[in-house]
């Protein structure tokens, strides 16, 4: 980044080839060659320095330690270099930028590592029959490619399906209440929905166990699991749906009301269709979030090794619970099976996530392309 003052000064000092035209647009985010050179130079010297000093002087060991040393050297060397060339103010700016870049990559790198690691561990035993067979004829010592997780996949799909049947209509009507009806309870409701989204997943499981299984005398079934999941699903869907509804321009509502539409017509014919893609995104993201929930299912579905098509009676399995149980076995084959389950679970989540992005365009917080064009025509954007 550079400003008019700095650009001119540096142009005078260092004879940059392109002529400093004061009329030309100042680009804030350009990267200059000097910066790149400094970065490369510091990287090389940091690497060399840590090669030299590492494990001879420094009390660190392992690859992690080496990377840390490299990083510290890199930061300090490039800081010194920039301070030499540009002065302290720019050096601070440079330092801040490096730290911010590091922080952002620290958030992204684990995600990449997790995905790669699960793929690497899981694909060995992934066979087509994983999607068609259950664990009926599988012992702890049979080969990891035998049997499959169809019972767990079916269980998960049924449980999440029922949970969304409960939570999605409730969640969207609650969001409508908060944002369209704007009743007396709208404000406290928002606080309670926020609080509900913080209910720990294990507490949701305990609640269903206490209320549905102990108090009402039901057994552990797939339905109990989906009830627990819907406790977690409801606030997620409500919150995202509310954000999506808030993005519907107020002018549309007023136009509908001005044309004599009733409130219900305004909501059903104007607000909901306008926000349809956003609502679909909200639902899919909610599904992606509850599909991997394990803790409440430990308490509610019971777990099984054979197929149970009926979520209303008998214990059922679910994919996360399947993984959680098998990973604790000492046998290699069982652990390998668990990793395969984890891979399938991760793929499910990724597919749902990509679907949500594709349907919702670019997340609910952005203006759609159509609307942008409309705004542009009016000269507003």
């Amino acid at each position, binding site marked *: 980044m550079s400003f008019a003052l700095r650009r001119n000064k540096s142009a005078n000092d260092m004879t940059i080839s392109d002529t400093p035209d004061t009329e030309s647009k100042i680009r804030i985010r350009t990267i200059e060659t000097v910066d790149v050179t400094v970065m490369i130079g510091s990287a090389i010297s940091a690497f060399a320095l840590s090669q030299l000093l590492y494990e001879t002087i420094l009390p660190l060991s392992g690859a992690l330690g080496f990377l840390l040393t490299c990083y510290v050297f890199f930061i300090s060397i490039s800081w010194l270099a920039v301070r030499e060339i540009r002065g302290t103010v720019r050096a601070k700016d440079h330092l801040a930028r490096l730290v911010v870049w590091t922080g952002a990559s620290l958030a*992204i790198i684990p995600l990449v590592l997790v995905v790669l*690691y*699960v793929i690497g561990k899981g694909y060995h035993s992934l066979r087509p029959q994983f999607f068609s067979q259950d664990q009926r004829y599988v012992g702890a010592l049979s080969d990891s490619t035998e049997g499959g997780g169809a019972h767990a996949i079916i269980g998960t799909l049924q449980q999440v399906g029922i949970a969304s049947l409960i939570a999605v209509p409730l969640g969207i009507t609650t969001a409508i209440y908060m944002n369209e009806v704007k*009743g007396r309870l709208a404000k406290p409701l928002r606080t309670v929905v926020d609080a509900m989204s913080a209910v720990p997943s294990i507490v949701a499981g305990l609640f269903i166990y*206490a209320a549905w299984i102990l108090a009402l005398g039901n057994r552990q079934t797939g339905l109990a699991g989906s009830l627990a999941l819907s*406790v977690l699903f409801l606030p997620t869907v409500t919150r995202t749906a509310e954000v999506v509804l808030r993005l519907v321009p107020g*002018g549309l509502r007023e136009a509908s009301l001005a044309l004599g*539409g009733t409130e219900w017509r305004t909501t059903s014919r104007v607000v909901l269709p306008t926000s349809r893609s956003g609502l679909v995104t909200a639902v899919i993201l909610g599904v992606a979030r509850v599909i991997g*929930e394990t803790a409440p299912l430990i308490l509610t579905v019971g777990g099984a090794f054979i197929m149970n098509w009926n979520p209303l009676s008998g214990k059922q399995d679910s994919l996360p619970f399947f993984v959680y149980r098998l990973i604790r076995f000492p046998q290699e084959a069982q652990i390998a099976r668990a990793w395969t389950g984890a891979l399938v679970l991760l793929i499910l989540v990724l597919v749902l996530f990509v679907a949500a992005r594709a349907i919702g365009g670019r997340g609910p917080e952005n203006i759609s392309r159509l609307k942008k064009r409309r705004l542009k025509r009016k000269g507003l954007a």
Partner: protein
Amino acid sequence: MKVPKSLQVDEIKESPSPPNDSEVRINPVVRRNRVDQVYRSIAAVSGSFVFLVMALIGGFLLFRGIDALRLSGWGFITESQWAPDMGGAFGIASLLPYTFSIAFVALFIAVPVSIATALFITEYAPRRIRRFLTATIDLLAAVPSLIYGLWGLFYLQPRIITLSKWLADNLGFVPFFKVNDDFGTSLGVFPSSTFVAGVIVSLMVIPICTSVMREVFGQAPPGEREGAMALGGTRWGVVRDVVLPFGQGGIIGGSMLGLGRALGETIAVTLIISPSFDAKWSIVEQGSNSIAALIALKFSESTETGISALMAAGLALFIITLLVNTAASSVVNRSRSGSATEI
């Protein structure tokens, strides 16, 4: 000279000022037929359902846990054992410090990383990358905690314990990093610790903190931002003097929301830790615990009293997360303008 249009409109608006506005005011309510009444009441009913569920959660946990609470009395808060099934004492005195220290380790890592990520998204990243990054952070939140737990157990733990060892060897004088091992610090005493669990939980906290902070940082007033730039400030200057001061509420609120999430995290912690019931200062040494993990671990092997005690522990966790989260949302909401979009 021509009068600007906006002024003309203002004049017209102001001229017939009503003497008594309570009489003249037109009620903006549209006509409501029976369908509307039904629509409004259905929405209200489903809205109140949320209140009902929250009340039921608290009520049922209390109802099921009250037996255990009666049995233990105040011991529930002061006792660090957990042996309700054998008729022994039980309490959350050791669980609470462990739960909080895992959460604080997670926040210690997650908050700086989240601030940096949020700043990167709002201030530093090119516009094209910005959208991709936001999606990636959302994806980070969508990955199941079970998978983070597995990754932590099999991949991260064997690697990160070298860092634990380094901390214990070099910073052992700090009580957090002290290890009571008579045979010197071998790597064997470092797995399944509070530290490892906290590092894994931080991965689940980062997306929550980041999305709150990103939203709040994005709302720093553009005028002051440009003003700082125009005065010759560097980007870091803008961040330090405009974005961060305006985003303070978001940083605090986001961190507290993350704290709420970290306190309730179950599966990843369950997979990592080996349960311990005597609270200790050291975070790098083997043995840790959390209320949520205890419930998940003990549930299948508990008798009636045991279940009741777990319900009481669940109630405690529920109340704590509720308090933390309500405080957090009030901080965040105060720092966020709740304006609607208008054409």
